């Protein structure tokens, strides 16, 4: 058994085990959930440390045939693209399980869904088979809707549940159509991603087919990642979600679409990628500038964080759109960094909501006087969010800007402006209103997170941001070789382009 199977298997097994635990054993339920995610996080750290950067092929690989007639197999493995994501996912899942003390009703069901979510999405990242890639993501996605509907907060909870369910289901189903079409069109009769890529090297897909399938994947995944203009589910959804759900969804699940684009769409459909990426570069300005501007107008902390997390997706799309080594490496780096950051900010806002009962910024103020630890952590998270050097986000964003400069100088100029100025304005303004100024009288006896168990998730996430911010080579050295492979496949030699254009789209549709 590969270590990857254990990393995502433990939460799933724990979810199954919890079904048989009586609902009133609250301590047991919580302990099982925290323990399972802790084991999976520890295994992920071990796996990350053992990973050899730049080694040939995939590591910790395991393949078991599942449905022979369709070419589906259970196939897991890591390379530089997903090793960081799995590490991030496992740590965030652990932090989210720790932060779930705020859930007071129907805890058993909540933890079962939380474990399904974490196990499912970690499995999706580890999977090297298209079918399981989709299957496990879907397994993780559906609990999100239920959690928002049942444990969500705010008056617009039902509306938010509907919106996020419809949006994300459409996105997932579009991507499913795209993946099935990809499987059929490739002619390789396998769902195995490495095998598909190998097959595509000798038999590239026709440009006609690529132009049909690529947009399905781009927009399917784009909806899941809140690509502008399909982003409107995100702020409200996260604003209404219980904070552990928002942590896992914004932190981990949202990276699924981006990972899918890099892992599947770029290497298999290079011509279409080139064609569409110019368009994506401009769409991502919508994320960075327009959604950043919307974030500036927010009066609710969670909506602000939600919008800012949508805005950050713009940088990742810009990195992918640049289709060069530096840009793609930067994009993967931000995916990891943003996972930690989004989880941290939602965890902190969850704590504040739990203690004060509101996230309206006009009603909050001076919280740093009482909540010293939480306040400081929120300040740091806000600074990381506007890209202060020393935090991981800075590294990723700078890398993306360097990478994209050659292709899209105008977009980069606007994005830098958006990232620095707009991000700076809304983040510092939020920090000023919430943490500084006079403390309203009703909040005079707020309790800070004092015991170290409560502080652990926040400290862990902050530490991760610091470590990767100060020692980016830990991550970039792992990403770079495999990002290079993806980029070389996404920028095919002219002879390959001629080969796929020479194939007549009519005659090759099915063989």
């Amino acid at each position, binding site marked *: 058994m590969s270590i990857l199977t254990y990393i995502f298997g433990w939460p799933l097994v724990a979810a199954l085990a919890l*079904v048989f635990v009586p609902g009133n054993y609250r301590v047991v339920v919580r302990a099982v959930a925290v323990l399972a995610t802790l084991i999976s996080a520890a295994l992920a750290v071990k796996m990350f440390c053992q990973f050899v950067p730049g080694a040939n092929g995939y590591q910790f690989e395991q393949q078991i045939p*599942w*449905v*022979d*007639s*369709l070419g589906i197999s259970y196939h897991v493995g890591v390379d530089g693209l997903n090793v960081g994501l799995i590490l991030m996912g496992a740590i965030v899942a652990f932090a989210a399980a720790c932060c779930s003390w705020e859930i007071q009703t*129907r805890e058993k*069901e909540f933890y079962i869904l939380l474990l399904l979510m974490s196990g499912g999405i970690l499995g999706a990242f580890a999977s090297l088979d298209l*079918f399981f890639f989709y*299957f*496990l993501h*879907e*397994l993780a996605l*559906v609990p999100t*809707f*239920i959690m928002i*509907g*049942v444990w969500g907060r705010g008056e617009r909870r039902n509306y938010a549940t509907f919106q996020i*369910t*419809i949006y994300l*289901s*459409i996105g997932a*189903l*579009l991507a*499913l*159509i795209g993946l*099935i*079409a990809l*499987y*059929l*069109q490739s002619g390789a009769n396998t769902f195995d991603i490495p095998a598909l890529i190998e097959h595509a090297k000798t038999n590239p897909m026709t440009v006609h087919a690529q132009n049909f399938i690529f947009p399905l994947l781009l927009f399917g995944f784009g909806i899941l990642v809140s690509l502008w203009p399909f982003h409107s589910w995100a702020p409200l959804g996260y604003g209404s979600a219980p904070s552990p759900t928002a942590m896992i969804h914004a932190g981990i699940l949202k990276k699924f679409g981006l990972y899918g684009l890099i892992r599947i769409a770029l290497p298999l459909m290079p011509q279409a990628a080139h064609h569409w990426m110019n368009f994506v570069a401009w769409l991502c300005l919508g994320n960075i500038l327009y959604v950043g501007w919307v974030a500036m107008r927010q009066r609710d902390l969670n909506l602000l964080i939600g919008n800012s997390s949508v805005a950050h997706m713009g940088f990742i799309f810009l990195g992918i759109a640049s289709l060069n080594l530096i840009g793609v490496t930067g994009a993967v780096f931000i995916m990891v960094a943003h996972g930690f950051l989004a989880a941290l900010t939602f965890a902190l806002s969850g704590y504040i909501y739990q203690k004060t009962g509101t996230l309206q910024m006009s009603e909050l103020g001076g919280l740093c006087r009482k909540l010293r630890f939480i306040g400081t952590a929120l300040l740091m998270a806000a600074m990381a969010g506007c890209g202060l050097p020393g935090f991981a986000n800075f590294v990723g964003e700078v890398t993306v800007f360097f990478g994209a400069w050659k292709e899209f100088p105008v977009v980069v100029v606007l994005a830098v402006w958006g990232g620095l100025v707009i991000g700076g304005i809304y983040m510092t303004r939020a920090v000023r209103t919430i943490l500084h100024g006079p403390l309203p009288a009703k909040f005079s006896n707020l309790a800070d997170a004092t015991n170290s168990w409560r502080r652990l998730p926040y400290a862990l996430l902050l530490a991760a941001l610091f470590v990767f911010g100060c020692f980016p080579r830990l991550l970039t050295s792992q990403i770079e070789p495999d990002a290079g492979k993806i980029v070389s496949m996404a920028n095919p030699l002219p002879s390959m382009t001629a080969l796929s254009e020479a194939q007549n789209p009519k005659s090759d*549709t*099915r063989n």
Partner: protein
Amino acid sequence: MNASLMFLEIWVVALGIVMMLADFFFCVTPERKRFLAYLGIAVLGVLFLELLGPDAPTGTAFHGAFVEDSMAIFFKRFFIIAAILVLFLSSEFSDSVPGGILEFYSLIIFALAGMLFAASSNDFVMLFVSIELITVTFYVLVSYQRARLLSLEAGVKYLIIGALSSAFMVFGIALIWGTAGTMNFTELAQVAPQFLDNKIFLTGVIFLFAGLGFKIAAVPFQIWAPDVYQGAPTPATAFLAVGSKAAGFVLLLRVLFTAIPAVTARWADFLIIVSALTILYGNLCALPQRNLKRLLGYSSISHAGYMLLGVAAISASGQSAVMYYLAGYLFTVVAAFTVIALVMQHLDHEDVSALAGLNQRSPLLATTMTLSMVSLAGIPPLAGFFGKFLLLKAVIEQGLSTPNHGYYCLTFVALAGILISFYYYFGVIRAIYWSKDTRDLSPIPLSGGAKFLALLCIAGMFWIGIFPNTVLNLANAAAFGFK
């Protein structure tokens, strides 16, 4: 003449007769009559193992009217398992059936015999006789609770619409026979290409389709489904939803792909439209439903639509997807109706709100119902997901290999249907776990048999969803051997 191929059917009919006569000879208390159901189940189990094993004989009998091929064997296995589950369910339901429960059992077995003949029919006479055997039995089964007005109403509706559709079908068969001069599917396939422009022949095909469309509840012949599902005794509803629908599908596959493949190839657009309308109608009408059995009635229409995706694909992989989907649908639907039967048999209404607090009253039933809804909605890792995946794959495959853009439209209609269905399936789950208006929190007593049945259905849903290989290989063998 090769009557040995029909051993299974003969045994099943004999079992039905014995079951019916048993009432005269065994004067037993109602509790002990449950054991007669178990006896019937045991006999069916033995027949399954003995006659439908991996080395079951194949061939044709009665001048090609009766065919035993891999598809027939696949469906016969399906029908026997369905009958076993339904007999189990009926034995749990027996206190709600005032008149003799043994006739109820034997009627189920007679309907099963009809379904087994349907799986093997390769001739219009065989088709019609098997359909009538199924339908006439169901007239009785549906109106079995004579004291319930709803049950009688359902029976009358089913009778009138069923008789009408049978009339259409006979008329259709007459027209086809009148033009083509043969009743046998294999022979018809050879002469059918001559009649592609013959309006009388095509009218016959349309009428035949109307009759089969009634069995599977495809738009526009779906109107009976919600009323009958609501009124019929729950085990009869379950058998109607699973067995009768599957019988409709096996006959549809036989007619479209054995008897008149030439016509079918030309009618892709027609099948696409019927499938799309069925999906949309079922899902949209299920949205406002509060009555659980009615809701499942509409949902069964939408599932007929999903399965028609595989038929509309006009390919072997489409047929295999239909068969796989039916196998998953069997356990899922029986699970749902088991819960309904156990929770609601002593209530005067079947509103979704009756499920409120079920997770406290009986965690096992709550889990069963939740998994069933999740599987119907098509969410991994249960059976429904892989089935929908195969159906969509078949449709997209056909879309890529033919210039017919209707397949892409159909794919998107199916996606819309799946999306809509999330709403009402999750509404049921929501009612179980999070409904506020819980009045009755008394635990539901479950007999050992009921627990076993629920666990069996859960195991079936997971088995087909997580280990699809076995069923898929059988379905593939049936579909590809069939071409």
